[in-house]
């Protein structure tokens, strides 16, 4: 059995066996996640040596059967998700069993989503993730959290319905849901109806990807759910939703209209997110809005056809995956209101320093990794050479300037004056610290990391190879 399948099966198995493990229950989850990371690393090596591979399920070859596509991109996402889950694993929890199970299911589904080579499977795993995340959001015992969670649930369900509608339309138009196969039938979708299907899917998956009009849940949920859940949602889940979008635009909807739609939504996300963040008075909300804008940037990057866009989006996504969870964790336990942060920089210098580091990277200050991601994004946007994408570069500029204004306001407040308040407990010290160190490591190892990302992007953007790999080069 391929390691990729193991990466899905193991956490699932662990989740189901959890009730039986008794006192070992709290160790099962981390162990499974760690195992997943190890598997991911081994897979990475395999892929690096042998190139992408396709795993066929149940003996039916594509396009009929279920296929897993194991390439660098997928391995990267799966491993990163596993690492994130491990880092964010709750040490104390009101209901450890249930939370562990949900996390493991989320991990499994996430890996599955990363590897899936077919639209329906993508949707299934997406739904699985959604279910797990509802549970996690609802785990917080606050009343506000419950209300926010409910709203999230409703919106997410509606989104899923539309996505399913879109998938149905695609199936009706193209007669297949296998991505490779769809790629060959892309012409069939190059019609108003096909585009409508794309729009439906985009908006549907956009709920999790925090795309502009369908992301109204974000600020509320992030500011009420526990920091770890928020971190996981902002850092991991949203990226997975965007991964689906990436698959769609890369393989199926490489048509200008679809790209423009994606770009438009991305830009609107940037503008709305940054400006809302500029006005936000409390820290989690501010970070949530920033998250919306950052994901908008990733969407804008994915709207650039070709390798440059994939590379930029990938870099941005991974960077955001490291930085934003860490930011949420650092902010956890601090007063929510930004003005009340005054003096904390003196009281808790290391924590504040970590916040500064992360914020700077988020803004794209060199030589932190965020800078490279932003450079790649701008280069990709301008490389398109089309007015809309040039405009996008300007919007990114404006958005980041606004983001700078509000993040700097936080930094400024942290180091202004002194506080009498006792230092809050820094529950997320370990995970945030690990993420911070990871960030610094990436900065130091910019050369190899950059190379790896480039290879991943190259591989992912090589559509003919994808099609050939999956369908075995068979002519239809």
């Amino acid at each position, binding site marked *: 059995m391929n390691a990729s399948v193991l990466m899905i099966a193991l956490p699932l198995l662990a989740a189901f066996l959890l009730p039986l493990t008794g006192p070992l229950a709290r160790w099962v989850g981390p162990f499974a996640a760690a195992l997943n990371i190890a598997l991911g690393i081994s897979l990475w090596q395999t892929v690096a040596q042998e190139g992408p591979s396709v795993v066929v399920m149940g003996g039916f070859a594509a396009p009929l059967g279920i296929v897993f596509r194991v390439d660098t991109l997928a391995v990267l996402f799966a491993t990163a998700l596993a690492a994130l889950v491990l880092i964010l694993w709750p040490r104390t929890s009101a209901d450890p069993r249930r939370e562990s199970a949900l996390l493991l299911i989320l991990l499994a589904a996430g890996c599955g989503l990363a590897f899936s080579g077919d639209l329906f499977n993508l949707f299934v795993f997406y739904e699985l993730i959604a279910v797990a995340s509802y549970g996690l959001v609802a785990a917080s015992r606050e009343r506000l959290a419950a209300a926010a969670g409910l*709203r999230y649930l*409703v*919106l997410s369900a*509606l989104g899923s319905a*539309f996505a399913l509608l879109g998938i149905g339309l695609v199936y009706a138009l193209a007669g297949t849901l296998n991505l490779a196969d769809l790629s060959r039938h892309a012409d069939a979708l190059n019609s108003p109806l096909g*585009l*409508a299907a794309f*729009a*439906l899917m985009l*908006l549907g998956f956009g*709920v999790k990807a925090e795309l*502009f*009009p369908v*992301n*109204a*849940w*974000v*600020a*509320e949920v992030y500011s009420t759910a526990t920091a770890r859940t928020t971190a996981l949602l902002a850092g991991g889940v949203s990226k997975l939703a965007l991964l689906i979008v990436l698959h769609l635009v890369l393989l199926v909807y490489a048509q200008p*209209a679809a790209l423009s*739609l994606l770009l438009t939504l991305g830009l609107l996300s940037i*503008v*709305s*997110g940054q*400006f*809302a*963040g*500029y*006005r936000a008075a409390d820290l989690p909300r501010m970070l949530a*809005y920033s998250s919306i804008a950052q994901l908008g940037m990733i969407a804008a990057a994915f709207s650039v056809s070709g390798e440059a866009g994939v590379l930029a989006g990938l870099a941005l996504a991974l960077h955001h995956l490291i930085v934003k969870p860490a930011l949420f964790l650092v902010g956890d336990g601090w007063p929510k209101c930004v003005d009340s942060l005054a003096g904390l920089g003196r009281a808790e210098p290391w924590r504040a320093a970590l916040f500064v580091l992360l914020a700077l990277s988020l803004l*794209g*200050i*060199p*030589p932190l990794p965020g*800078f*490279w991601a*932003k*450079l*790649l994004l*701008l*280069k*990709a946007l*301008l*490389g398109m050479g089309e007015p809309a994408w040039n405009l996008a*570069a300007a919007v*990114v*500029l404006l958005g980041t*300037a*606004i983001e*700078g*204004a509000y993040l*700097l*306001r936080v930094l400024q407040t942290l*180091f*202004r004056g002194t506080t009498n308040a006792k230092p809050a407990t820094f529950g997320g010290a370990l995970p945030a610290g690990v993420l911070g160190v990871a960030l610094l490591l990436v900065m130091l190892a*910019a*050369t190899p990391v*950059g*190379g790896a990302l*480039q290879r991943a992007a190259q591989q992912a953007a090589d559509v003919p190879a994808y099609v050939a790999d999956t369908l075995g080069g068979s002519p239809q």
Partner: protein
Amino acid sequence: MNDLDLLLLVSIGTTAVLFAFGTWRWAGALGTLLYALQLALLAVMRPELPLASGIGFEVLGYRLQWSLSGLGWFFAIITVASALFSAWFAAGEWGQHRRNLRLLHGGLALNVTAMLILLASDDLISLFIGWELVSWASYLAMVQRGGPAMDAAYRYLVYALAGALAVLVAIAMIAAQSPALDFGSVRVWFASAGNGTIWTVMLLTMAGFGVKMGLLPLHLWQPAAYSESPGPIAAFLGAISSRMGLFAIIVVLAQLIGLERLGNLPVAFSFWNANEFWAWLAALTLIVPTFIALTQNDARMLLAWHGIGQGGYMLLGILIATPLGVSGGLMHVINYACYQAALFLAVTAVAHRTGTTDLDHLGGLINRMPLTYVTMLFCIIGLAGLPPMNGFVSKWMIYKALLDAQMPLLFVAAVIGTLGTILSVYKLIHNTFLGQLRLEHAQVNEVPISMWLPMILLALIVFITGWMPGLFLDLVDEAVVAIGITQLPHHLGGVDLGNGGLDMLWIVGVLLAAIGIGAIVYFLGNRSVRVGQFDNYAGGQILTADVPYQYSHQFYAGLLRVIQPWMRGGMAWGERALVSGADFLGGAMSGLYRAAPAGAYLLLAVLAALAVTLL
């Protein structure tokens, strides 16, 4: 490991050491010595220029490399020397009873390091990295006093960040089209790029680098940010920090695009070319802030506003693109660094003794602080650009170059700036040192030697290099050659041109001799008796110290009545408009999210998307 690597290493080491031992009693002295070492290293590497560093990385296919050209070397000398004098000033009594000394010394060293990294950059990415390092390092230097300083620094940083992003967009634009980002390749790319592309890149980079330089209309952050920082830091920032912007602008305009190309780049719908466009912007930069400085009532604010204005001269000189103009513009950088640093130090010395820099609450300190007065006197003459100080030489070169290049109106603009400078520096020295001594300052004493010696040395440099400008012109040559301009033939006293030259040796010599004659004539009269400040004509009124007999507030009331109607604060209004625009949009967007009829948005969005795609 060559000299450049060693220099960078020493500089980084200085930062580390000063952060580690910043609170140690001798930290300032140690810093001074370390800066002296860096200066020595710079002097040693002069024959080897341009010197490429052995350090280099390759990220995402871009090679990051560092190499110190003559231009960078020239700026590096000024940077390290400014830091040397600032650290020296802070090393003694000034720094003894201050908190945050670690941040002060460490921050200064960090600034120097960042600037050296910027100055040594050899490709656009390393330039950008250096640029951001400089921005954040100077932010660290600015915030130290807390309170209003933090607000000023925040304002600076927002400007700087937005500007840096503009630069980043420009770099991305080049990266999207040029095969590599090292200066050589970019130069080639510029040579083949179209006018529109160059204009876009140029506007973006000027917007970014212009922030630091205080190019109009991006200058609003600068006065408060500089004047609110601690004295020696203000001296350092005032002397050289903004010049980093100029350096980057020179790199882009002169080294990468090329001044000749600039002259061939038309401005749409006008008779102008890019060169004239930037030159006029530089002229505005030198006039407007100078006259705003005239209205200031705080010594540090006044100096900081002048700092912006003086930057205009430098850019103007360089844009003339003749050897004389470029040399003049670059020489103004080093001249300006000398007197601006000394002026900030002098004002700091006054503040150290009197506790205020409010020009309405000072006066008559000349007898109490004579050495500080001499420093300020020498340096304001330099700042005003009058003989015999060095500021005159560089300004003369700029004037002369403007006239030779047939740009009479820019010449007049430059002169107007000088006139405004003369007015406001007189106000500065008059309100601080001349006029009536206030009762509360009657017991004020001169600052200790650790403070006045660096100031006086700088003032002497200002005078000596005014007398023998050849000393600085030699340094300028390195930079001029690095830009790719013909070297200006010069001698110790100045320059010889076919149509009217300058020989400061003679001019200053004659001036000094004539002052000697003036002294002889003066001593022909009977010797004088020294009277007190209250033995003064007041229309028969007997003067008392409880009623101030001083003219300082609204010093140039008549002039201001004419020009103040023109000072409508248009640029500040623009800034406020931007901020309130952002506030408004922010309110709208957060309202959008806060209202959150989430499902409705989704449905509406889907309907809209369907409508758009299907219809």
